[in-house]
């Protein structure tokens, strides 16, 4: 019944855009599906009580939302996530080549980082902020397991990403450009001007016979800054621009990597000659300003407005977002000079976001699926190691995407047999309380409901399709039914 109605409005909305609209219940569920890590009975009730527009506006202002006190209390347990780089390195030293205690220190840092991310996703009252922290970390991805990044990613997400997710885009680009985690991950800390080195060699004459240590330009960061962080690939820059941008960022380095690791501009290593980036002259004879000017040029480029808007719309609206929506968002980006709250507001108040064509049409990424299952079942997470292992099996281990592209939010990336089987098995295991470190009290969560239709409704937050319900009419018990719902096709969409 519901399905055929759904198919009808979907078809109609594709033929006559703007004709049918989501009803009030659907709008509330859509908001919870897209702007939280998964709807719960309580969240849905709160949205309906407040009115969906007001609720969306509140989510755009997380500072006005009181944080869940239980979460705040819980986060205190994880000492490392509150430490500065210097404190972290002193308490949990990491030496290369491999020193004693490295493995245990790294395990602790990773466990605390990944576990707090999961806890926040599941329990935070500031759900949109959590989704955006995930989105922007992924946009400016760094890989936890690259050398010293194991010590630096904790601060990176907390200090360079989180403060800016609803702030100004340029501030976030600058914060990531200067953060040692990024400087290390994309090698910019080692990129130096060849000229400056020649001069240094002349000044401090190499000892005769000493091995010649080559040093020079490294393009890794410059390329990804253009391609992945700002303009997008093939959107108006050349290989020459990449090289020139790399020259501008020479000397952007890390002060004392082993103790503290802070940004340091090293003028001695900077290429002081004139450069030309996207047709604009970067005058000779300057220092750190070169990189600052490049960032300024990039964030104000129309390609950046469009690229950032496209990526947000792909994650929040549809794998193939309507071009008209992207244009509106890009215009808001340009007009406000990168005010991300306004870009989000433009998206969230657009008819495209609320269109029946996109309702329950996004495939959940693994982290979204896992977090939403934990939220729907009201799970208590005592230790997240087993859950983190599931995320790895599903192809989305937290903080462990090797490539700077981050994870893709597209259905085809996550729709495959290995992934489906893992989702089914995880759904079953969770409902039957067989995931180590996680406790589920279904009786409480389901408020004593046992009828299959009611169990499905309580977890999906919408009535199950007739086809789903047919299979659920089994006497195998509530936990089995709940497991089928969580691992079933309807739960994989949001």
């Amino acid at each position, binding site marked *: 019944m519901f399905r055929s109605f759904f198919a009808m409005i979907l078809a109609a909305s594709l033929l006559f855009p703007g004709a049918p609209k989501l009803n009030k219940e659907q709008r509330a569920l859509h908001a919870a599906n897209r702007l939280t890590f998964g709807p719960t009975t309580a969240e849905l009730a709160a949205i309906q009580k407040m009115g969906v527009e007001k609720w969306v506006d509140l989510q755009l202002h997380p500072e006005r939302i009181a944080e869940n006190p239980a979460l705040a209390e819980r986060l205190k347990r994880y000492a490392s996530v509150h430490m500065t780089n210097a404190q972290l390195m002193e308490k949990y030293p990491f030496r290369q080549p491999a020193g004693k205690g490295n493995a245990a220190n790294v395990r602790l840092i990773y466990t605390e980082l990944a576990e707090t991310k999961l806890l926040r996703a599941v329990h935070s009252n500031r759900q949109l902020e959590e989704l955006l922290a995930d989105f922007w970390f992924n946009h400016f991805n760094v890989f936890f397991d690259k050398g010293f990044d194991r010590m630096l990613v904790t601060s990176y997400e907390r200090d360079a990403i989180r403060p800016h997710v609803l702030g100004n885009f340029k501030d976030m680009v600058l914060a990531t450009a200067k953060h040692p985690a990024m400087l290390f991950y994309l090698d910019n800390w080692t990129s130096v001007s060849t000229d400056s080195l020649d001069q240094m060699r002349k000044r401090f004459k190499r000892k005769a016979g000493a*091995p010649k240590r080559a040093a020079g330009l490294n393009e890794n960061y410059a390329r990804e800054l253009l391609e992945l962080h700002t303009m997008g690939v093939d959107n108006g820059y050349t290989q020459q621009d990449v090289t020139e941008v790399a020259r501008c960022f020479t000397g952007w380095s890390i002060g004392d990597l082993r103790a503290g690791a802070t940004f340091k501009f090293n003028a001695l290593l900077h290429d002081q000659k004139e450069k030309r980036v996207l047709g604009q002259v970067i005058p000779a004879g300057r220092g750190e300003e070169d990189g600052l000017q490049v960032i300024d040029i990039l964030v104000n480029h129309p390609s950046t407005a469009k690229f950032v808007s496209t990526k947000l719309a792909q994650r929040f609206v549809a794998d193939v977002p309507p071009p008209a929506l992207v244009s509106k968002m890009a215009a808001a980006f340009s007009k406000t000079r990168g005010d991300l709250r306004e870009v989000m507001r433009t998206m969230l108040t657009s008819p495209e976001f609320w269109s029946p064509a996109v309702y329950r049409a996004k495939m959940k990424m693994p982290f979204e699926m896992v977090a939403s299952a934990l939220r729907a079942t009201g799970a208590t997470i005592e230790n997240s190691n087993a859950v983190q292992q599931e995320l790895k099996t599903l192809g989305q281990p937290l903080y462990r995407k090797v490539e700077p592209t981050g994870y893709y939010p597209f259905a085809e990336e996550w729709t495959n047999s290995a992934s*489906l089987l893992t989702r089914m*098995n995880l759904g079953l295991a969770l409902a039957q309380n067989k995931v180590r470190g996680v406790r589920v009290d279904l009786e409480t969560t389901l408020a004593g409901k046992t009828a299959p239709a009611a169990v499905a409704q309580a977890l999906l937050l919408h009535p199950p399709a007739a086809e789903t319900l047919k299979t659920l009419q089994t006497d195998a018990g509530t936990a089995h039914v709940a497991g089928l719902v969580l691992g079933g096709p309807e739960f994989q969409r949001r």
Partner: protein
Amino acid sequence: MTTNTRRAFVRNAALTAFGIGAAPGWLARAAGAGAKSKRVLVAIFQRGAMDGLSAVIPFGEKRYAELRPTLAVARDAAVDLDGFFGLNPALKPLQPLWASKQLAAIHATGSPDPTRSHFDAQDFMESGTPGRKATRDGWLNRAIAPQPNASPIRAISMGGTLARSLRGTNRAVAVNTIAGFKVRDNAQADFMSMYSQSTDTVLQGTGKDTFEAVKLLASINKAQAASGVTYPGSRLGQSLQQIATLIKADAGLEVAFADTTGWDTHINQAPALQGLLTDFAESLAAFHTDLGARMADVTVVSMSEFGRTAKENGNRGTDHGHANVMFALGGDVAGAKVYGKWPGLEAEQLYQQRDLAVTTDFRDVLAAVVQHHTGGADLAKIFPGHAAQPLHFFRPMQ
């Protein structure tokens, strides 16, 4: 990437009844009914851009040592192949395969597209259409002919996600491990019922492929297919071990995809590359030993999105470059030879004065493998927009 590539494939969802009714050919084969075994193509992707000049070293080239002041491998340290090229010492486990003429290298291969972006270049190599981002499916999926009653595991991709190379309208399954490829707690029938009836065509289609593969993998004779060979514990080693198991089980496997990551060696390249190349060589050598005589039906081909700068950078590493080296291993490969026209490393011979130039289109290497495996493949459909000239590196068919 362009947005129009980002739609999930709907696979023959409504065409076949769900579940396994009649026993098609592959099931008979899996049950050991002695059917003719099939040829198997195994594609390996080295993600991150392998430094081909360090893998198959042109030590006969005067400029090589000049361009690589700290990275150059000394001539007598390399495994001499033909007096001009040598294998990196870390690839020594491949030496017996080379000596037995089952392993060949194809140098200066790559894409006509100039991109030095990892994700674009990987996308182009996997779609098989350099420069064209709108291509939705992958070359390896197009390389298998549509066939009713084909084995549900005729095309597999190792790992938690389905490789871009294998996405498309022909069914292909992603497998983490054979042992773990099942539904727990007696829920298989219920999930099958739910997915088969779902009106979500994408998930219904994937569900169908999944459960058919689950049934087949549960039925294969694991004892017969077990290997007495020790593979590296790495992602590549474990993937190749699973692939070997499926080949030996005669379960209808035709194409398989595996990948390995971490080849993006911008800094302090030598130790990193030593680990990667050792793993690559040991994994391939174990696979070769494990399959024994079955290698007669198998070809392995390796690729990486682009090569690296001819000149080392300021950090004893290399940056993104252009041409690279590919390997082909198999019973029919006319091995012990470095194929491809060598373009040279003099400044004027380099691509954009910095990278090894491409003299063989990577598609002409893949086309040769596809042609050898399928006979009458329509290469124009597998590599659209490219007049394929398959490179000859197979022994003439008997």
